[in-house]
């Protein structure tokens, strides 16, 4: 009963072999089954998430949020799904058909494929590949591609503008994200996700390398293009960004992909910095591990939504400046610092808690120093302050004027 | 299983196609893309030889990594050249650029 998932798996395996299938075939079938399960799980999660998200947004923005369909409007998402499925697909003239249709799928796939390598619990892993981290980054780059395709193929300059903007942003924000991802790899001495999680017991990398965690959070929020980085769908400037022309389930796919991506970021945060599935008794009861994993992920998810619901959108040049002039240099510094400190401490080989303490203090020092320096340097572009314009002019003031 | 020669022939095919692209395409960006194809074919050769001859030593993969670096820089510079060229003469066809021709 302890290891529920693996028990089921072995049972199924024996069952299929018992039906007279070759072992390789059995493996294959099980793998397909597993992936399908994961995908379904993702969709279910998303459906839940959409409701949570909307409720949360409502509460934060001092509204009720969905409250018609069902108790507390929990059936809202299903209603949306039905609506989306029944909408008409519009393909603009002059659009590049193939790309236009591939793009949402790719966007969807690029998020889903990441889930293939997540260790949900001890020995509950889709594909335990040795280069998990790189895999995640590589697959993530497909998302960019999808956006580019969508923006270019739908023959629409708003879409194209949004796409080019987002690509510029995503490419530049990939740098600090990858650099921050390098730090858990460096600390765990492996690119294998389960190895990284093992290395985080009992001290999470959130404590060992706080800067990396913070920067990873920031840059992945930019990656998922949520506020305050949601310039690729700045309604006021370009109608809806790259998916302006999409409708129906194609739009739905982008939508789901976005939500799922946010949740995936939460999962990544969990794996890399919050100790993944590790927790009390998780080693012996993998099912607990799964629960821990999803709980942590959900907490991070909520945090992200909280941030994006509270912060306003920032200007593109400021955003790029933030990236190129602060995040990238500091993350490089952080990488160097962590590498050196880790090496030195390995030489000294102190007690684990001393190691962690030193790392934490160093990171904090670096963070504060860089913030101080950044505060000292004046911005590249001088921002013009407009005087507050009088919205309404009282007649007295008019009379006194004339 | 799969003998080495298949991979080699596959790589040769990619290489030849890339060569054709380099020789025949008008657009400079297309030429760059074809060059990418050729480089990839070369990488496939490296890896295949690594796998089939000396999997114990990483030489093949090392070379592949170096090739990645080379192709990345080549593309970066090439595209930058294309952009600045486009700014000046508004066309990026390899054989229509004749500023330096008699």
């Amino acid at each position, binding site marked *: 009963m302890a290891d529920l998932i693996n028990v089921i798996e072995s049972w199924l395996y024996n069952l299929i072999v018992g039906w007279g299938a070759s072992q390789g075939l059995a493996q294959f079938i099980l793998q397909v089954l597993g992936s399908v399960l994961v995908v379904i799980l993702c969709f279910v999660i998303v459906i839940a998430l959409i409701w949570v998200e909307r409720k949360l947004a409502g509460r934060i923005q001092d509204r009720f949020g969905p409250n018609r369909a069902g108790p507390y409007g929990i059936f809202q998402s299903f209603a949306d799904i039905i609506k989306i499925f029944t909408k008409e697909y519009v393909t603009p003239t002059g659009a590049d058909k193939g790309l236009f249709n591939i793009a949402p799928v790719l966007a969807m796939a690029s998020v889903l494929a990441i889930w293939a390598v997540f260790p949900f619990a001890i020995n509950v892993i889709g594909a335990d590949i040795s280069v998990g981290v790189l895999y995640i980054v*590589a697959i993530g780059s497909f998302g960019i591609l999808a956006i580019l395709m969508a923006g270019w193929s739908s023959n629409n300059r708003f879409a194209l503008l949004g796409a080019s903007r987002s690509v510029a942003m995503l490419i530049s924000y990939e740098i600090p994200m990858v650099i921050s991802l390098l730090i858990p790899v460096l600390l765990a001495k492996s690119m294998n996700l389960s190895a990284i999680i093992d290395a985080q017991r009992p001290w999470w990398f959130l404590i060992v390398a706080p800067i990396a965690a913070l920067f990873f959070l920031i840059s992945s929020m930019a990656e998922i293009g949520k506020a305050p980085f949601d310039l690729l769908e700045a309604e006021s400037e370009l109608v809806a960004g790259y998916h302006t022309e999409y409708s129906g389930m194609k739009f739905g796919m982008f939508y789901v992909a976005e939500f799922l991506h946010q949740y995936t970021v939460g999962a990544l945060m969990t794996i890399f910095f919050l100790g993944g599935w590790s927790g009390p008794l998780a080693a012996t009861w993998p099912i607990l591990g799964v629960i821990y994993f999803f709980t942590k992920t959900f907490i991070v998810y909520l945090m992200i939504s909280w941030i994006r619901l509270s912060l306003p959108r920032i200007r593109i040049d400021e955003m790029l400046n933030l990236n190129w002039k602060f995040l990238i240099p500091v993350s490089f510094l952080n990488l160097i610092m962590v590498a050196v400190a880790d090496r030195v401490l390995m030489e000294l080989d102190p007690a684990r808690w001393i190691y962690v303490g030193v790392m934490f203090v160093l990171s904090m020092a670096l963070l504060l120093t860089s913030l101080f320096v950044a505060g000292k340097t004046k911005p590249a572009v001088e921002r013009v302050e407009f005087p507050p314009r009088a919205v309404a002019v009282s007649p007295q003031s008019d009379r006194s004027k004339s | 299983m799969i003998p080495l020669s298949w991979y080699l*022939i596959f790589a040769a095919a990619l290489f030849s196609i890339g060569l054709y692209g380099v020789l025949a395409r008008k657009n400079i960006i297309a030429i760059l893309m074809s060059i990418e194809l050729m480089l990839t074919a070369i990488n496939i050769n490296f890896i295949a030889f690594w796998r089939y001859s000396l999997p114990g030593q990483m030489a093949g993969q090392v070379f592949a990594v170096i090739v990645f670096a080379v192709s990345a820089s080549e593309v970066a510079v090439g595209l930058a050249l294309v952009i600045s060229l486009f700014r000046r003469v508004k066309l990026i066809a390899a054989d229509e650029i004749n500023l330096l021709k008699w």
Partner: protein
Amino acid sequence: MSLGLFIFFLMVVVTVVAAVAVVTSQNLVNAAMWLMVALFGAAIAFVLLQATYIAVIQVLVYIGAIAVLIVYTIMLTRNPDEKYGPGVNKQWPIAAALSLVLFLGLAYFYYTLPQTDVLAPALSGDLNAISQLGALLVSPNAYVLPFELASILLLAALIGSIVVAWRK
């Protein structure tokens, strides 16, 4: 017909077709997309060759960076009054013949060569490719020099491309 063989042939067909599409399609963006497919096929080939690291790097570098850059450049350098004329120049038949000759020659060569008719030796179980690769790349009595050269090359390319594309 085992799974691996099937995947191999699938990969070969997809990749070659995509490559042909790259060099033939009139529309540059399509060509770029096809290029990505071809490169992805190459990544699959690497996976089949059990070079996972190289495969992932292939995807990361080519599809994540290079292809996106190419598409971006295409968008930047598209002048509105450009008709997709014949994408090839006058010498394309010779070029095609030449490439065909090359391919046939190489194929014949490989096919007849006995050394190439070998099967892959079994990988030793303890082969930890990535760490070994990393150690080789930075160990002074292995490939540290080419590695550093590559890094310098990358830096030079970075600066050079910025300088070249700088808007005066």
